[in-house]
C-alpha cells in the first residue's frame, strides 16, 4: 500500500509538471465538445439545384417557384441547357439537375402527360437519394395543384392518396445534438485515455527511467496500478467537465441518472486505460505506440455506431464491433441520456465492459517485464 502511495505521488508529479499536456488534456476536449456537435447534422437541407429549363412556360416557372419555396432547395443555376447544368455538378456547385423538356406545358395540357428529368450527383448515395425523393414529392404536390385547376373535382379527390404522419419518440424535436454531444464526449474520453497511457510506459523505456523502476522492489501490479489510477481520475474529471459543457452549451440533462453513467464510465475508463497500457508494454518507441493507438482508435471511433449505423455494416464488421468498447459506451449513453434506462437495463453492457477491463489490465500486467 505504501509503495503504491509513493508511485502515485511520482506519477501525479510527473503529469502536473508538464503544463502543456495538462492544458491540452482539459482544453482540447472542451473546445471540441463545444464546436463539433454543431457540425454533425445529417438532415439534408440546402440542396443545390440547377435547372435546365427548355420550356420557359408559366408552368415551368410555377414549378421552380414551388421548389425553391419549399426551403430544402437552393437554386444555384438557371439556364436552358443540360450541358451547362451538368458543368455545375462537375464543379461541385450543384447537387441536382432538374431538366424541364420543351413543350412541357403543352404536352401536359394536350396529351395529359409530360415527363421531367432529374439527375442527381449520387456519390454520397444517401444525400442523392433523399434529395431526389424530396424533389419528387414536391413535383407530385404541384401535379395535384395543376389537376385542380383543370378538373372540377367530384366530392372526393380522384386520386388515392396516403397521408403519412410521423412521430419521433425519445427525441421529438429531432435534436441531433442530444445524440451527438454524449457520443462525442465518449470518443474524446477514449482518445485521451488510450493516448495518455499508451505513451506512458514506453516513454520511460525510451528515456531509460524504467531501469530505475525495475531495480526497485515495486511489484508489477503496483507499477501498472500506479500508472492507471492518475489517468483514471483525470478521465473522470474530463467527463464531468464534458457534462458541464453539455449542460451549459447544449442544455442536455440526462433523462436517466448520472450515477448510472458514472458507474459505467468508471469501469469503461479502466478498460480503455488498460488497453493503452497494453499497447505501451508492447511498443518499443513512442512513435510505434502512437501509430498503434491511432490504428485502434480509428477503428473504434469510425465503427462505434456514432457516425454510421452498425446495423447497416456487413456481418463481419458487426462482429468486429462486438470487441469495440466504444460501441458499448455510446449505446449506454444513448440509453441513459435519452431513454432514461437504469442500471438494470444496461446490465449486459456493464458486464461485457467489466470483462474487457479485467482481461486488458491482467494482460498488461502479464506482459510488462522487469527484465528486458
Amino acid at each position, binding site marked *: 500500500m505504501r509503495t503504491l502511495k509513493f508511485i502515485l505521488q511520482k506519477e501525479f508529479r510527473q503529469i502536473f509538471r508538464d503544463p502543456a499536456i495538462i492544458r491540452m488534456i482539459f482544453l482540447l476536449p472542451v473546445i471540441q465538445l463545444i464546436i463539433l456537435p454543431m457540425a454533425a*447534422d445529417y*438532415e439534408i437541407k440546402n440542396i443545390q439545384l440547377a435547372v435546365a429549363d427548355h420550356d420557359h412556360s408559366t408552368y415551368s416557372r410555377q414549378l421552380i417557384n414551388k421548389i425553391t419555396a419549399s426551403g430544402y432547395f437552393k437554386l444555384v443555376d438557371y439556364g436552358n441547357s443540360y450541358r451547362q447544368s451538368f458543368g455545375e455538378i462537375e464543379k461541385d456547385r450543384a447537387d441536382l439537375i432538374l431538366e424541364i423538356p420543351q413543350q412541357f406545358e403543352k404536352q401536359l395540357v394536350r396529351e395529359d402527360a409530360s415527363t421531367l428529368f*432529374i439527375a442527381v450527383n449520387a456519390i454520397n448515395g444517401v444525400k442523392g437519394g433523399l434529395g431526389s425523393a424530396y424533389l419528387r414529392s414536391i413535383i407530385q404536390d404541384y401535379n395535384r395543384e395543376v389537376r385542380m385547376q383543370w378538373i372540377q373535382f367530384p366530392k372526393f379527390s380522384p*386520386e388515392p392518396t396516403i397521408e403519412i404522419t410521423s412521430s419521433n419518440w425519445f427525441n421529438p424535436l429531432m435534436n441531433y445534438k442530444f445524440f451527438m454531444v454524449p457520443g462525442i464526449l465518449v470518443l474524446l474520453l477514449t482518445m485521451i485515455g488510450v493516448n495518455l497511457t499508451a505513451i506512458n510506459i514506453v516513454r520511460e523505456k525510451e528515456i531509460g527511467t524504467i531501469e530505475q523502476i525495475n531495480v526497485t522492489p515495486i511489484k508489477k501490479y503496483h507499477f501498472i496500478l500506479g500508472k492507471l489510477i492518475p489517468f483514471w481520475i483525470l478521465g473522470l474529471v474530463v467527463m464531468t467537465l464534458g457534462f458541464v459543457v453539455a449542460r451549459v452549451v447544449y442544455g442536455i440533462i440526462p433523462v436517466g441518472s448520472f450515477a448510472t453513467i458514472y458507474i459505467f464510465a468508471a469501469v469503461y475508463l479502466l478498460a480503455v486505460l488498460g488497453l493503452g497500457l497494453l499497447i505501451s508494454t508492447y511498443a518499443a518507441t513512442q512513435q510505434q505506440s502512437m501509430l498503434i493507438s491511432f490504428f485502434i482508435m480509428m477503428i473504434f471511433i469510425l465503427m462505434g455506431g456514432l457516425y454510421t449505423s452498425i446495423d447497416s455494416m456487413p456481418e463481419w464488421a458487426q462482429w468486429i464491433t462486438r470487441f469495440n468498447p466504444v460501441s458499448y459506451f455510446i449505446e449506454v449513453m444513448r440509453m441513459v441520456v435519452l431513454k432514461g434506462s437504469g442500471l438494470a437495463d444496461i446490465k449486459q453492457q456493464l458486464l461485457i465492459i467489466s470483462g474487457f477491463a479485467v482481461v486488458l489490465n491482467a494482460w498488461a500486467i502479464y506482459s510488462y517485464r522487469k527484465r528486458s
Partner: protein
Amino acid sequence: MKQFISFIRKEFYHIFRDRKTMLILLVMPIVQIVIFGFALTNEVKNSKFSVLDNAHDAASAALIQQLDASQYFELQSNLHSYNDISEAFKKGTIKLAVVIPEHFSDDLEHQNKAQVQLVADASDPNVANTLVNYAGAVILDYQDRITQDKKLPYTINTEIRMLYNPQLKGAYNFVPGVMAMVLLLVCTMMTAITIVKEKEMGTMEIMLVSPLKPLLIIIAKAIPYLLLSIVNIISILLLSVFVLDVPINGSIVLLMSESILFTIVSLSLGLLISTGASSQQTAMFISLVGMFLPTVMFSGFMFPVENMPKPLQIISNIVPAKWYYIIVRSVMIKGVGIEAVWKETLVLFGMMLFFLGMAFKQFKIRLA
C-alpha cells in the same frame, strides 16, 4: 548539396532500421482502407421495422409487403398494441413502427384517402430521419402504382438518373474520405515527432552544430517519409480499384500529383507541430486527440459541409482533408480534369507554404 544528401541518408537509416515501425507505417493504411471501405456506409440498410396492422386487409398487406421488399427495411414480428412499440424501442429490437389504421383498404378505395403513421426511434435522430424519409418514399411508390392503374389526366412523370454512382454504393463516398483521413493523420504523425524526438533525446545539438542550413535540416527530415507515403498512396489506390471496385475515372497522373501535394501538406503540418511541441507526448496529443475528430467531421464525407451553420463552414476551410476530399472525389469518381479542381489545388499549395514557413520560423537553432 552533398551534406544535404548525407543528411537524408541519415534519416533513411533511422527509419529503415526500425523495421517494426516501418511495417506499421506501410501495413496500417492498407488494413484501414479495406476495413472502412467495406464497413462504412451512411446508407441505412436492412433496418428492422414492425407493423401495427389494425386493418388486416388487402391494401395493408400489399403495403407491408412493399416495405419489406425494399432493401432498406427488414420486417420483424408484428406488434399487437401501441404499447408494444415503446417496449420494442426500449429493447432496441426495431427502429421504426408503421401504424396502419382500421379500414385502410376501404378508405383508400372509396374515399381515396387513407392514413399511415410512422413512429421512429429518434434517439439516433439521423437514422430516424432517413428511415422516415425512405418509408415515405416507399409508400409514395405504392400510391403511384395505384394511381397509374387509374389513368389520371394531367400527369407529370419524373425520370431520375443517379449520376456517377447508380448503385448508390457507400464506398464511392467513403473511400475518398478515408483516403484523406488516413493520409493526413499518418503523415502528420510521422513527422510530428521527428524533430521533438531529437530535442528530447539530446541529439538535436549535434544537428545544430552541423553546417547545414536549418531549412534543409527540416526538409531532410520529411523526405524519407514522403517516399513512404508515396508507397502508401499507390497501395491505397490499387486497393480501391481492385478490391473495393471504386474506379479511377480521371487521370491517374493528376490524382497521383494531387495526392503527393496533399502528403507534403500533411508532412509540413507535422513538422510545424514538431517544432512547436515541447515533448513527443505533446506532439502526439496534438496530432491525434486534437486533429482526429475535426478531420472526421469537417472534411465533408461524413457530414455535408453545406448543412453546417455558417461559422462552422468557415472553420471547415482550415481542414486540409476537406480540400483533398473534394479533389479525390472530382478526379477519381467524376473524372474531371485540373480545370475543375485548380482552386482546391491552390488552397493546398498555399497551406503547404504556410505550414513550412511557420515550421521554419518556429525552428530554434539555439537550445534553451
